[in-house]
């Protein structure tokens, strides 16, 4: 039995890996959930076909990152998995049901005709919306912390429903809508793109507003977070984060009103997400069950983490490589024809 834990900080590495996997999930499924959130507001059915086609080759792969998030948490931080899953029982189940609805809508919509197509359009929209909102609520109540006794969750079934988690829920919905609309700016043209530009600039305002609200309430949740951000010298090191984020907002705003810029809004939105996520991650580090267990206390044993590290080292670059290849194969603007 090999075990690297004597010379590598395995929980730290795995914490970073899981955090990256969740971030990738948020970005990748974020844009396709975002397309779902905006779906019924598109100007025409042809636009909707284009929107659907722009994400159809990718959604299976994007959702796999969520499986990795769940499976990875189970494997690397089993204590967090077995405490957090029961704690967020209801929003997780609702999220899963939403993902099922939108997932099958992809397949069925292409096969349906006439009126039944509308059913799947709405299944796609409400599934995406519900899943995004639940993810945001889970995030919010995760940040607030859950009640724990020993190695088990000991709170009530509705502990996750708070004003703060509703706020983060809405924030994530707008965030995904931003990713979705800027994705559409990149992947479509003509009226679909014009519409996406309009929607994106509207959504951008709300993303800014909710990011501000969430960032302002974070320090009041926990003293450590307050100290971390506002004590000297931290404040000077951390100042670039809000500054860069705000400049990215201006960049997206500018690009959305400049017809030549088709790609940059999407990547700048990714930047906004990155800094938001980074801020959150730095605030919470090293907690994995906030304010109860840190990553070293919740980590799986050395042999398991070592074995998986040996696997991840070659596999993750490979996965990123062929995922990139698939995006490359389907580069360019999407059409509205039925593709297969």
């Amino acid at each position, binding site marked *: 039995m090999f075990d690297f834990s004597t010379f590598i900080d395995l929980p730290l590495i795995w914490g970073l890996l899981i955090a990256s996997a969740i971030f990738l999930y948020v970005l990748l499924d974020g844009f396709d959930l975002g397309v779902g959130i905006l779906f019924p507001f598109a100007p025409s059915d042809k636009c909707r076909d284009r929107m659907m086609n722009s994400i159809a080759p990718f959604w*299976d*792969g994007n959702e796999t990152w969520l499986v*990795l998030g769940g499976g990875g948490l189970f494997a690397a931080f089993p204590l967090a998995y077995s405490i957090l899953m*029961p704690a967020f029982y*209801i929003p997780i189940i609702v999220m899963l049901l939403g993902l*099922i609805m939108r997932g099958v809508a992809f397949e069925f919509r292409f096969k349906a005709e006439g009126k039944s197509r509308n059913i799947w359009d709405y299944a796609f929209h409400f599934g995406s919306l519900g899943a995004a909102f639940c993810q945001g609520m889970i995030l919010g109540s995760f940040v607030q912390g859950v009640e724990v006794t020993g190695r088990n*969750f000991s709170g009530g079934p509705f502990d996750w429903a708070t004003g703060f988690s509703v706020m983060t829920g809405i924030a994530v919905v707008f965030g995904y809508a931003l990713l979705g609309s800027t994705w559409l700016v990149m992947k479509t043209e003509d009226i679909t793109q014009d519409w996406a530009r309009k929607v994106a600039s509207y959504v951008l305002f709300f993303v800014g507003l909710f990011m501000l609200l969430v960032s302002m309430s974070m320090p009041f949740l926990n003293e450590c977070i307050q100290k971390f951000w506002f004590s000297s010298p931290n404040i000077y090191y951390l100042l670039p984060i809000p500054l860069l984020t705000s400049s990215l907002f201006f960049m997206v705003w500018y690009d959305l009103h400049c017809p030549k810029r088709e790609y940059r809004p999407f990547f700048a939105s990714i930047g906004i997400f990155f800094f938001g996520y980074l801020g959150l991650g730095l605030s919470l580090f090293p907690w994995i069950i906030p304010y109860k267990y840190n990553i070293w206390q919740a980590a799986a044993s050395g042999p*398991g983490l070592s074995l*998986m590290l040996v696997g991840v080292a070659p596999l993750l670059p490979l996965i990123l490589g062929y995922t990139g290849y698939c995006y490359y*194969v389907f580069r360019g603007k999407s059409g509205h024809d039925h593709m297969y």
Partner: protein
Amino acid sequence: MFEFDPILLARIQFAFTISFHIIFPAFTIGLASFLAVLEWRWLATGNNHFREVYKFWIKIFAVAFGMGVVSGVVMSYQLGTNWSLFSDRVANVLGPLFGFEVLTAFFLEASFLGIMLFGWDRVSKKMHFTATCIVAVGTLISAFWILSANSWMQTPQGFSIEPDGRLMPTNWLKIIFNPSFPYRFAHMITAAYLTTAFVVGGVGSFYLWNKRHLQHARIMLGMATIMAALVAPMQLMIGHMHGENTMEYQPVKVAAMEGNWEHTTNAPLYLFGWPNQQKETTEFGITIPNGASFVLTGKADGRIPNLKSFAPEDRPPVVWVFWSFRIMVGIGMLMILVGELSAVQYFRKKLFDSRWLQGVWMLMMPSGFIALLAGWFVTEIGRQPWTAYGVIRTVHSVSPAILGPQVAWSLFAFVVMYTFVFGAGSYYILKLIGKGISVSEDTEQFYKHGLEASIIEASKSKGGNHV
């Protein structure tokens, strides 16, 4: 007041969601390999019928795969929401297996599926074929890991137990290649291929029956016949070996399968019966004397396990195991019969004309799914009352914080959602089958081969190599 039993509800919820889930991976494991063979035949022969059959089945594949993905995401969270104590205790052992499943298989399948479905005009023929093969291999890798994890729960080894009850790995090879794994893996892959073969053969027969798409239908029924004729008997052998392995490691499961309460030797084989857990006997039995002993040991007076030698609290719900086993074996026998009859008809050159046989094939379409679920019922219910056999009991696995009503409404929501999704999925698949195969406008190929040539082609190259 009616009380919800959270343990029973959690079990029903898991059984329901995983039974629903396994239908799709089983079907896609078979279909992916089938598609790979079709595309290979198309590239090798240039016969466009193969391509058209491929393009027809890939639509159904996409629906099945999508439903497999979304119902699979549920599984990766269900373990934590409802079975947190189990998760906490076994994560160090099973976690890496799930991790490797995602890393080595799920991403591979999901990414290249996009190319398979939408990449026809965007990548070369060779690259497209490669993508199909990658997806097919991905489904097998995925089955490898998940069956390894499941088999470990049946025959756990390679771990030590910490004072706080958590299991720690001591030997990865022993964990991954646990005693029941090779048999379960072979049994499941074969089952997936057979399930798919009977769906494909059924659809082919449907077209032959209706005199539509004759060349395509011959390819389908022909390939399905080869599969059924060769692999169905093989499955009987694999199943038998799996049974012997179970007798060694989980004797009480075999005792329940046979409905054997008393006999140590000369146990009869029940063709029919109703095991009564309270009275500790199998009622209304129609038996073959010494049959069970003979089947399991090869000798009429061979020793086989009986239920009474296990404490009542260590016995699984016998009637479920007993009947699921009979349904599975019964369907397996029918599959062999249909496979061999079709082979005989083929050699009499009547396979594509016997309408009664086409009728049988159409009736057999759902048989694989039923047998597959029955088989899983045997092995999973037969493992009760344990989650990890002999190590962790089911009652000690369930999440302590979740309450009956919570599990009850979520179970209800899953049942409603899955019924709706399953109904719609079946409807669209049937609609696709009804709509038929779209023939490509590439007439040049068609003329070259002509009607007769393609019939010969189809009957010659039924691609038996799809195992």
